[in-house]
């Protein structure tokens, strides 16, 4: 008798334990809740890697549902359809949009719903997840996608920049080609010859000093003779009467002019060698500077021939002299 009572209690206990377990499972899977859900479709052209079924759906940071299914749109191979299950009373508006956000460093993602202004209409809800006419939520690019696009744009710009730099280098290379170098060298040689000729001219001017003095002396002698001739003309004019008076006055003015010229000549006004020397001094200075400049240009061209890229970037490094320290 006692044995039978024990088995009944044992059976009741096991049965009760089974019921409690079933209730716990149902409670955990939220069957106990009498919560209803509605379905929306989210369409995106982005990659949905990291977004799985059961991934949380959040509205303004509040968890309002989960991802039900994901599949590639059969009519558009570049877009993905995500069916989301959202609590029935959640206000999903027509201007609500979705963003795929990463969940920390795990690589998983969740769907963040944002937007949804007060004045906007509620989006059409669907109770069946296979309903083809369910409301569609559109997506905005995620942060990663924005960064990705920005990098794509930067990479494109860098490519363009490199292409332009390449063109510039090609054009500079064509500028610094052998023919142009030869032309520049020829120009420099011609300049050097011109400089030498100028120096010779200035030297010969200075060496002609004696001859210039001789010419000046001859002018003075000539002037004296003209004065004497003028005097003779004057006498003639006196003898010649009134008609010659005008000739006489002209002769006087010529005589005065000649006297003035003589004075100026004696003052050194017509000292051509001195004038030439004064004029040549700045020229000589310029020639010295030009000579130095030509030397520098020759050195520069030689360096450029050795390393044409030095025109843009100083690449060639010279070895220090023995014992040379910085």
């Amino acid at each position, binding site marked *: 008798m006692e044995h039978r009572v024990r088995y009944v209690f044992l059976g009741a206990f096991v049965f009760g334990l089974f019921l409690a377990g079933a209730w716990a499972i149902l409670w955990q899977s939220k069957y106990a809740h009498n919560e209803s859900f509605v379905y929306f479709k989210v369409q995106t052209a982005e990659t949905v890697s990291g977004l799985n079924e059961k991934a949380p759906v959040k509205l303004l940071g509040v968890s309002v549902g989960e991802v039900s299914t994901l599949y590639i749109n059969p009519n558009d191979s570049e877009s993905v359809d995500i069916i989301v299950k959202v609590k029935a009373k959640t206000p999903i508006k027509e201007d609500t949009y979705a963003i795929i956000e990463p969940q920390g460093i795990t690589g998983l993602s969740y769907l963040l719903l944002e937007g949804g202004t007060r004045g906007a209409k509620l989006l059409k809800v669907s109770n069946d997840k296979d309903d083809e006419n369910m409301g569609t939520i559109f997506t905005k690019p995620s942060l990663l996608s924005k960064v990705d696009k920005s990098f794509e744009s930067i990479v494109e710009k860098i490519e363009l920049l490199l292409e332009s730099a390449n063109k510039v280098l090609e054009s500079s290379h064509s500028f610094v080609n052998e023919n142009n170098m030869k032309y520049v060298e020829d120009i420099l040689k011609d300049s050097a010859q011109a400089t030498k000729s100028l120096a010779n001219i200035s030297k010969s001017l200075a060496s002609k000093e004696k001859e210039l003095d001789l010419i000046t002396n001859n002018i003075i002698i000539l002037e004296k003779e003209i004065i004497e001739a003028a005097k003779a003309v004057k006498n003639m004019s006196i003898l010649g009467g009134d008609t010659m008076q005008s000739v006489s006055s002209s002769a006087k003015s010529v005589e005065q002019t000649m006297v003035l010229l003589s004075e100026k000549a004696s003052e050194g006004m017509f000292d051509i060698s001195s004038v030439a020397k004064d004029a040549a001094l700045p020229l000589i200075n310029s020639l*010295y500077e030009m000579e*130095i400049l030509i030397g520098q240009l020759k050195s520069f061209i030689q360096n450029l021939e050795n390393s044409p890229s030095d025109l843009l970037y100083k690449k060639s490094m010279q070895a*220090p002299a023995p014992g040379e*320290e910085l």
Partner: protein
Amino acid sequence: MIRVLFIAILTASIFSGCVSKPKIHPNTSFIKINLPKNIEESLISHDITLAINMPTGTAIKSSKITYIDSNNLRKNYAYHRWSNFLTLQIQEFFVHSIAKTNLVFDVAKAQNRVDPTLILEIDISEFAQYIDKNENSKVVVSGSMRFLNPKEKKALFSKTFIYEEKMENLGVNELSLAYDRVFALWLKDTLKIIDNLGESYAR
């Protein structure tokens, strides 16, 4: 995934520039020919107006410091230069140092507007440092100089010269000091010549 990897590598390569060693050329330092410190004033001042022409010679038409190695190859110092072109420095050296002695009535550069009674012409054939296999070194300055009568364009005195000064150690400081010693010797000889000419030749 490949795109993310590409972006990561690109970012790493861009920022690697921040840690790479910069390829900046070291600053160039300059040396100059210094006037001797112990220039004595001459007791006699000759009635001479001396004009010093710009020295000539390819060895001095640059501001690079040249050395000749044991293989007889001419090379330049990489990070050191003369502070000005040697041709200008030598001319200024003689103008200022002779002026300091008061040996002549006036001394000027040939480019100045002075009417000289004596012209000094200098032609340099060598101006370099020689370094042998054992790293023994010396500086050599050689060439010719002549004094001219500007009116007759006639040489009153002419001579060739070669000055050598050994360096105890290699290095730019020692090099600068060696050149200073060479110029002090050269100046001393030049002053003697001017003094001799002054006695026989005057305005």
